[in-house]
């Protein structure tokens, strides 16, 4: 895990970066730090500003306000050729009139690296990305997956301070996508290259990232490791975007210290951890719990609440139940596909306990 404790280790800083188009704020303010060797993902739905942010880092778009620092240099007003970045585009952007070797070697040529050295480095990099021997082919002769690797090689071979990837896997089919995720992460870790990755796919972000920046409508919703985001989403959007969530609106009826609260939702009374301090008594709040943290037993005991099973969906390794409380609250429960749970049928009565809940303000 990269050490982010000291600011000196951070390779990329975004300070108060804002991008406005006329009166509309497309992105910002964004404050970010990316540590050396870290893979940071910008995650969010389309239009959330993640690609714009990436383009600002790359220099393809200029921020209206704010500063960018890369490897200690201020690059805010620097043109892309001078930023020492490697960018992999969603559509790969391979030069169709140049061979694979010429594509990969392009950046080295711009940096006036001697020819024999270019050839050697290109060959080595193609091996690293798993494409040995295709130097002389033209892009149109390659498959989508191969083109993607060439694009990656082209960005990596110049040994940039930071690697930027703009949804590079979106155009691959599902199977290839899964495989490339792991390979990409593997290459990134082996080379130890600082990386910013943009995607709208939550699974992808989880599998690959050291940290995730969740964005929505141009703003940063939350920054954290995959586990942080999964266990402790701070907003309704975060809770809904990451994984599945049960979201129930209720009232704070009790507090203990800064973090522990008791939420009343209809006939349910559930303890939860506040994601942010300051949830006051009587305040409207949203209770969140993940479906797999809804525990089922078949009898009302301990502090389980009585519920009726409305739907049962068999998913192979898990079973998804839709439960309703006496008071009409709906919940989703994801249980392991083992005998004790398989025997639960639609219409059956179960007791459920909501564990590891989080609460955040309803506004």
């Amino acid at each position, binding site marked *: 895990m990269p050490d982010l404790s000291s600011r000196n280790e951070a390779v990329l800083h975004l300070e108060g970066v804002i991008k406005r188009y006329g009166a509309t704020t497309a992105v910002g303010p964004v404050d970010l730090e990316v540590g050396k060797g870290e893979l940071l993902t910008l995650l969010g739905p389309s239009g959330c500003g993640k690609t714009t942010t990436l383009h600002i880092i790359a220099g*393809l778009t200029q921020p209206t306000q704010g500063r960018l620092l890369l490897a200690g240099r201020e690059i805010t007003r620097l*043109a892309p050729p001078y930023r020492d970045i*490697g*960018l992999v585009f969603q*559509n790969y*952007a391979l*030069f*169709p009139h140049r061979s694979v070797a010429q594509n990969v070697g*392009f950046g080295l040529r711009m*940096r006036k690296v001697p020819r024999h050295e270019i050839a050697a480095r290109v060959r080595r990099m193609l091996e690293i990305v798993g494409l040995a021997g295709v130097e002389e082919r033209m892009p149109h002769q390659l498959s989508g997956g191969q083109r993607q690797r060439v694009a990656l090689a082209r960005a990596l071979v110049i040994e940039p301070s930071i690697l930027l990837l703009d949804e590079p896997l979106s155009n691959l089919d599902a199977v290839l996508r899964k495989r490339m995720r792991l390979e990409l992460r593997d290459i990134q870790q082996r080379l130890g290259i600082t990386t910013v990755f943009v995607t709208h796919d939550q699974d992808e972000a989880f599998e690959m990232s050291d940290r995730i920046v969740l964005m929505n409508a141009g703003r940063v919703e939350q920054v954290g490791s995959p586990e942080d985001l999964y266990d402790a989403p701070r907003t309704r959007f975060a809770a809904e975007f990451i994984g599945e969530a049960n979201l129930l609106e209720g009232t704070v009826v009790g507090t203990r210290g800064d973090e522990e609260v008791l939420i009343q939702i209809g006939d349910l009374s559930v303890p939860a951890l506040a994601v942010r301090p300051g949830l006051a008594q009587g305040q409207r709040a949203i209770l969140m719990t993940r479906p797999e943290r809804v525990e089922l037993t078949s009898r009302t005991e301990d502090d389980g609440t009585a519920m009726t099973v409305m739907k049962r969906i068999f998913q192979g390794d898990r079973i998804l139940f839709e439960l309703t409380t006496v008071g009409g609250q709906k919940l989703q429960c994801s249980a392991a596909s083992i005998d004790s749970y398989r025997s639960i049928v639609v219409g059956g009565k179960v007791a459920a306990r909501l564990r590891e809940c989080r609460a955040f303000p309803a506004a």
Partner: protein
Amino acid sequence: MSLSPDAACASMAGSQTERVREPVLELSAAGRHGFMLLIVGLYVFLLAPLLVVIFASFSPDQRNVYSLSQASLHWYREFAASENFRSAFVFSIWLATVASVCATVIGFVTAYGVVRFLDRRREMGKAIAMLPMMVPHILISLSLLLVLTRFPVPELAALVVGHVLICLPFALAGIVASLEGIPHDLEAAASTLGASRLRVLTEVTLPLVAPGVLSALIFSFIISFGDVDIALFLSGPGRTTLPIEIFSFIQWESSPVIAAITTVQIFLIVAFGLAVERLVGLRAAMRI
């Protein structure tokens, strides 16, 4: 007469694999034959005048019909010998070269501006560029002539300008089409890899747009060479184009030497046209 289900399926399959279109109108056999007859007739109609001229150019004398064994290059020799026609031919070539180069350069610069910088107003930009096509060419020619009489502008310049004006819409259309086919990402990629603006142009943009530029050049040449309307009013002693020379000649006499000249023109133009087709496709170049 309705479309049979298999034809519909075939057309769907076709559209996904080969883009071959199934006939939409399923006519009876007689209707189909009639249609093909019409099409063949149209092609004959289109090509007959040209073929006739080519044929007549090899005539041994004034006749238009002769047997093949009598074919001769007599009129070609006469063409080569004629001072007027030779110099007009040379002048036309010179003029077409100058006009096409100017039109292509201006066209390239403008096309780059329109495609890369005009996002929302691109269609308007393209429409404005087509302005010379909306106006009758004789109007352009006359206006320039009028300006000539009032201002000290060299007559040759007016002729060149007139030709550049009528070539520009086509040069532009061809280059715009080519530029639009280059994904914007490519230039951005080159930039992030360290290429300055100039190098992006020379390494990425120009090589990829070269076919479009070349075809714009050739197409402009063709238009300039065949133009009559502009040269009609702007030609003069020492600057007569070949079409105008022929026009003057025909009004007074008729001689198969014209056939020889026009045959040479035909082959010249057809050769160039083929080049354009190979490079970019004539439809894209014509954009009509």
